[in-house]
């Protein structure tokens, strides 16, 4: 006799149909893409000629500045990142282990903090120029030339210093994963190390270079704080000013859509190149060659160069921050800092939980429907938000939320003579929703990868043993996905703590995240007073780099 009931005719037949989980997943995906839809619609609406006024006056400057900035940052990042990556992957030299992770650290520095510190150092009233004037006995600006940091050029240098690690990281692993035999073959056939680099390594990594630069370009376009602080007008600052200056959502939407067009060009480039990279990468016949040993003057030059970049990108700005923190400890460690740190902690935790739930929902639904292209759709839709620069995201989120508020207030006023006011855009709802739109890509992708490593046969085994799909999710999937759930939601948490431009536009009255709190002091030229908060942001930003470096060194085997 069997322990579970025999198959009976009473059990209803089930055909393949869309499950409630799938429906819910589709619904959530729909809600998460609403902002982009509304943004596009709003961009076609009249805006009291603000946009045409912008076109007539400053728009061309904004666009040119943006393009120049993107071009400059990409070039400089490549100039720094490419040689570092190649030397790190192909050579051995003293201090290699140290530099392999040290060179990633600038990624943790918020660009606006670096901008502030560098201004403090290199401005006319900064310690560098004061020292120079003292040494050479110069009296005024007329006596000497010194570069002006608060310019497009200055912004280019600062953004490159914190963004080159993208190029460095991607290219380093590309060079490491390259088949060493090919390089060896070219060397045996008479190529020098340089010639083999140009003939073999470089052409094969062209795709990775384009992908890395697309990332840098997107980050550059999304940067708001540095350019705003330097008063360099770009599309991001234009969106910000149009909204806060004219309160014109539709003009801001027009600018946003313009900017999105640029972003999607870079995104498409990146995706396309990634596909091509797949064609090149071989998992088999993968051998690691012996590194070229560097000695003497070459080694000295390499170490000096790396030290310089590490110093400028991390040691100097972080050191000065620490200095501020020590000097101004009494001012900087205050109730506001503790309150805002706590507030952003709560906000970021809610975002992390939200992103995790959304990601679980769409991936579980996808699994239940056997991962068809159709059932994967909500997951892909949810990941779209990641491409939105913070300012664009903020505008995109404001449009539907204010519409809902408008309608709700009107109806509630009619029915109950009561207006709830800005119950969405004026509360934490807006910022949390915006961050879920933006960061769910991280958890959705991570959990998708996690599911890929769980054999579908585990599901089949559980089902044939008489357990339902949801029981299987609870007892098998969730325990196996636990690590991925934890790390991916931690990443979301960190991103939400650090994000600035969207928070600046969406934070409710009286609410600050650590980032907006720090930025406010940056724009008031008083970073010293928020130095501990800034240090906290850097430390939080260092956490994901531990994962990144561990992952990258795993690929080194």
């Amino acid at each position, binding site marked *: *006799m*069997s*322990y*579970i*009931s*025999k*198959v*009976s*005719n009473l*059990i209803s*037949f*089930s*055909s*393949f149909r869309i499950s409630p989980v799938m429906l819910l997943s589709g619904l959530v995906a729909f809600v998460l893409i609403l902002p982009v839809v509304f943004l596009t619609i709003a961009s076609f609406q009249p805006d009291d000629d603000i946009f045409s006024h912008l076109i007539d006056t400053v728009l061309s400057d904004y666009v040119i500045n943006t393009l120049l900035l993107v071009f400059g940052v990409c070039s400089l990042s490549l100039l720094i990142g490419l040689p570092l990556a190649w030397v790190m992957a192909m050579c051995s030299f003293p201090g290699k282990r140290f530099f392999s992770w040290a060179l990633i650290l600038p990624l943790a520095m918020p660009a606006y903090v670096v901008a502030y510190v560098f201004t403090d150092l290199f401005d006319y009233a900064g310690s560098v120029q004061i020292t120079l004037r003292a040494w050479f006995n110069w009296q005024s600006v007329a006596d000497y030339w010194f570069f002006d940091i608060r310019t497009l050029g200055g912004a280019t240098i600062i953004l490159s210093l914190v963004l080159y690690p993208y190029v460095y990281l991607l290219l380093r692993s590309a060079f490491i994963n390259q088949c060493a035999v090919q390089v060896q073959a070219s060397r045996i056939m008479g190529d020098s190390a340089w010639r083999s680099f140009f003939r073999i390594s470089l052409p094969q990594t062209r795709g990775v270079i384009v992908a890395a630069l697309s990332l840098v370009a997107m980050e550059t376009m999304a940067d708001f704080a540095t350019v705003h602080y330097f008063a360099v007008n770009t599309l991001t600052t234009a969106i910000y000013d149009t909204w806060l200056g004219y309160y014109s959502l539709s003009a801001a939407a027009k600018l946003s859509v313009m900017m999105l067009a640029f972003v999607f060009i870079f995104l498409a480039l990146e995706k396309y190149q990634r596909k091509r990279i797949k064609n090149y990468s071989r998992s088999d016949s993968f051998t690691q060659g012996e590194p070229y040993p560097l000695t003497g003057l070459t080694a000295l030059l390499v170490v000096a160069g790396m030290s310089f970049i590490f110093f400028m990108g991390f040691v100097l700005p972080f050191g000065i921050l620490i200095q501020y923190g020590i000097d101004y400890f009494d001012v900087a460690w205050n109730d506001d800092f503790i309150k805002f740190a706590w507030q952003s902690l709560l906000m970021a935790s809610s975002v992390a939980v939200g992103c995790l739930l959304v990601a679980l929902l769409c991936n579980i639904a996808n699994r239940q429907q056997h991962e068809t292209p159709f059932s994967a759709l909500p997951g892909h839709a949810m990941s779209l938000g990641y491409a939105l620069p913070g300012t664009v995201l903020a505008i995109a989120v404001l449009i539907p939320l204010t519409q809902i508020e408008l309608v709700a207030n009107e109806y509630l006023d009619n029915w109950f003579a009561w207006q709830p006011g800005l119950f969405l855009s004026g509360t934490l709802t807006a910022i949390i929703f915006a961050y879920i739109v933006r960061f769910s890509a991280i958890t959705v992708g991570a959990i998708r990868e996690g599911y890929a490593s769980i*054999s579908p*046969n*585990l599901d*089949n*085994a*559980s*089902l*044939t*043993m*008489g*357990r*339902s799909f949801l029981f299987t999710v609870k*007892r*098998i999937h969730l*325990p*196996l996905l636990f690590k991925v759930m934890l790390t991916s939601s931690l990443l979301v948490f960190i991103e939400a703590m650090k994000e600035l431009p969207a928070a600046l536009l969406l934070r409710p009255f009286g609410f600050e995240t650590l980032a907006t709190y720090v930025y406010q002091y940056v724009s008031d030229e008083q970073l010293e007073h928020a130095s501990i908060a800034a240090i906290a942001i850097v430390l939080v930003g260092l956490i994901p780099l531990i994962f990144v470096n561990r992952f990258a060194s795993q690929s080194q085997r």
Partner: protein
Amino acid sequence: MTSIVSVKNIHLHYGQQKVLSGVDFTLNKGEILCLLGPSGCGKTTILKSVAGLLPISAGTIEINNKVVSRDNEMIPAEKRNLGMLFQDYALFPHLTVTDNITYGLRGLNKNEKQQRLTELLTLVHLDGNQHKYPHQLSGGQQQRVALARALAYKPDLLLLDEPFSNIDTKVKFELIDQVRDIIKQENVAAIFVSHSKEEAYAFADKVALLNQGKVEQLDAPDVLYKQPKSLFVANFMGALNSFKLATLPDYLHAKFNCEAHDMVSFRPEHIKLSPMTESAVIKAQILKKRFVGSHYQITVKHNDTALLVLTDKGEHYEPLQWVNINLQSEKAILFN
């Protein structure tokens, strides 16, 4: 005998592509059926349809005389009371041997559960391993945990999806014997998917040989080998030498009823070699000799046809030598 599974004229297609076209078989309690065939013949598809993991386009599948699958409708896997053994074992990596085995047990109190667990651990010779995790076990042990897990709740039918394909040949047949013994001890009907005829010979009571979504022949393993109904079956089940009857001496024609057939085939062990004599009827020249341990495989050429012969007297023959071949006409395999 009570039939446990009855598969009636099932069809399955994805769009235009036909995967199954009219498969029939029945299986009685305690019987082991092997679905055998080359890759892409639809054997795993049949297994998944019986399991309730895939819907069928037409036909019916009955388990215990109840219809469980019909045109695009099915009772889901979790309501069929089946046990399934997967190619990759599909053990839950985060659960211990105990938790894996008792995963499907329901409606039992703690003592009954413990008792069943002890029974199963003894059955699969894994006493003392109940607190280990799958990664702490050898491949064979993992296989036996999977088997215990699939048998734990006394399923009506056990399904095995290429269960031995990941196992080292050295221990494979030992394991096949063990698994077969356990299944026979539990007296459960089993369907087993494989692409290896050796596994089918060792494991199954009857074999359904599949080709392009159809059952070519369903019989006991030795019948499939000795009396194949088609050239496909004959070739799949073992090496074969085929002759056009016209090329053979007249006196043999009578034995093979020439009116009905034009081809005759022999297994390599049913062709004998002898040294060349004046009176030799069928002459052949040796092309190649290979020593394979228990015997020799000798390739000879007869009328431009290469024939494979097995002999234990290979030391008497060398390449290029002419020999006489004798066909054991009573073992001849005939097709139309």
